[in-house]
């Protein structure tokens, strides 16, 4: 869209430029034609002036000749000669002026005819002058009688007038042509300028349309940016909140881990600090945990006792009443009953029997007996017994 409008504007400007160049070229050509026509007009007027001069000098020379023929005065004779001589010069100049111009070939031809007529007229004049000099007035009369020469001056006048008419006709034609040319040039300039103005208006309309479209696009982009910025802000807030929540959760988990670890270590410390043997047993009387005092006082390693039955190392005296056939720990665990400070014997790893007193504390978890804690206190030194 944007590129199309730019192309259109550039194309229109190029078209306007081409029209302006054409108008300028037409104007220059018109000016050149005008200058050429003016030169030609001046030249034609010059031919006309020369033709009229020929006729004037012919009449002046003829008058001076007649006066000389009457008076015989040399000054009159000189006057006729000067006038004729000037007439001849004008004739030669006019012939030269029309010689090379194609439009004036007709005039040139007339001038050549005129040259012959004037040449004949000069010959007659010379003969007449000679007759005056030789025979006086009588000689002149005889000359006129022999060569009346009535038509030569009229022929020359007609020829000159024809020449002038032809030249004036050419002037009129040239004037018409100039007028037509001027009209054409003016119309070309006016049309060119009018078209340029129309094109300029079109360009302005396109530019205005383009500017409006660009403004609209810029506004749309600004709105889109604002929306995007708003979304980014909202998203950033969400991310910040999520991060904070995640961080708090992470801190909470780390705290929970540390607190439980602390609690575990502390409980372990308490149990490990007890000098009595502490043995945790399952409901089926298997050992699940012991404290360091067991290892120190009995010689059994933890791995040797764990998962083994407590009955392997703890032996109970027979029931004096003989009524209880079962291990007292089994009965206490079944009933969830504590046993406190009862005598028993503990088999050390070395095979020696140690007199001990024990207590049992069943462990309850949600009303269920899940095991028990057995505490054993050594009361007497160990006595030897061979291991079975």
């Amino acid at each position: 869209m944007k590129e199309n409008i730019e192309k259109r504007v550039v194309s229109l400007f190029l078209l306007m430029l081409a029209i302006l160049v054409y108008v300028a070229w037409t104007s220059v050509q018109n000016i050149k034609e005008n200058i050429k026509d003016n030169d030609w007009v001046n030249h034609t007027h010059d031919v006309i002036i020369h033709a009229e001069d020929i006729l004037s000098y012919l009449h002046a020379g003829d008058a001076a000749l007649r006066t000389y023929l009457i008076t015989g005065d040399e000054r009159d004779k000189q006057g006729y000669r000067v006038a004729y001589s000037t007439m001849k010069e004008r004739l030669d100049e006019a012939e030269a002026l029309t010689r090379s111009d194609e439009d004036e070939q007709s005039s040139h031809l007339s001038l050549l005819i005129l040259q012959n007529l004037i040449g004949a007229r000069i010959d007659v004049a010379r003969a007449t002058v000679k007759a005056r000099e030789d025979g006086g007035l009588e000689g002149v009369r005889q000359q006129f009688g022999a060569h009346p020469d009535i038509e030569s001056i009229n022929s020359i006048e007609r020829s000159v007038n024809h020449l002038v008419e032809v030249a004036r006709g050419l002037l009129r034609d040239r004037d018409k042509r100039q007028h037509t040319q001027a009209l054409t040039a003016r119309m070309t300039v006016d049309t060119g300028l009018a078209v340029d103005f129309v094109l300029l208006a079109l360009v302005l309309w396109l530019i205005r349309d383009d500017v409006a479209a660009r403004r609209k696009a810029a506004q749309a982009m600004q709105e889109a940016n604002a929306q995007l910025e708003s979304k980014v802000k909202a998203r950033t807030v969400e991310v910040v909140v999520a991060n904070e929540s995640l961080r708090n959760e992470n801190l909470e988990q780390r705290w929970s881990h540390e607190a439980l670890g602390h609690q575990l270590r502390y409980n372990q410390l308490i149990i490990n600090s007890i000098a009595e043997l502490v043995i945790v047993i399952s409901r089926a009387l298997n050992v699940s945990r012991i404290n360091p005092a067991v290892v120190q006082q009995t010689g059994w390693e933890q791995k040797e006792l764990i998962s083994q039955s407590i009955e392997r190392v703890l032996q109970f005296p027979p029931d004096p009443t003989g009524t209880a056939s079962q291990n007292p720990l089994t009965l206490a665990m079944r009933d969830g009953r504590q046993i406190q400070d009862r005598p028993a014997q503990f088999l050390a790893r070395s095979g020696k029997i140690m007199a001990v007193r024990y207590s049992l504390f069943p462990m309850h978890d949600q009303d269920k007996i899940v095991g028990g804690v057995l505490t054993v206190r050594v009361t007497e030194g160990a006595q030897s017994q061979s291991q079975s």
Partner: protein
Amino acid sequence: MKKHILTIDDEADIRELLREVLTIKGHRVSTAANAEQARKIVVEDPPQLIILDLQIEEGDGFVLIEEIKRLSSNIPILLLTGAVFDRDLVRDAIEKKVTRYLDKTASLSTIVAEIERMLVDAGAP
């Protein structure tokens, strides 16, 4: 102005975690692992609140509480320790010695909320 809080605990991880959380909340936190470090901070840069564990390096938490009270009787003390006894039963006895008592198994958010509340109660800026 940031509030100055002193945490006294023998476990470095606990001390640093409390420092991290309370710093995020905008407080200034000092830490001590033993009684001597704690006494020095209380004298040189008295805190607006003390968080104390009964277990400290080379010392006794209960003895340290008495010493702190002698040095500056108006500093609120939060006893934050492992649950070694029935909390409900011993609460009154313990809270006669300290301002508040929480065991370490409480959630971190509960502990932080309690700290903020104690600071407000103490009129700290």
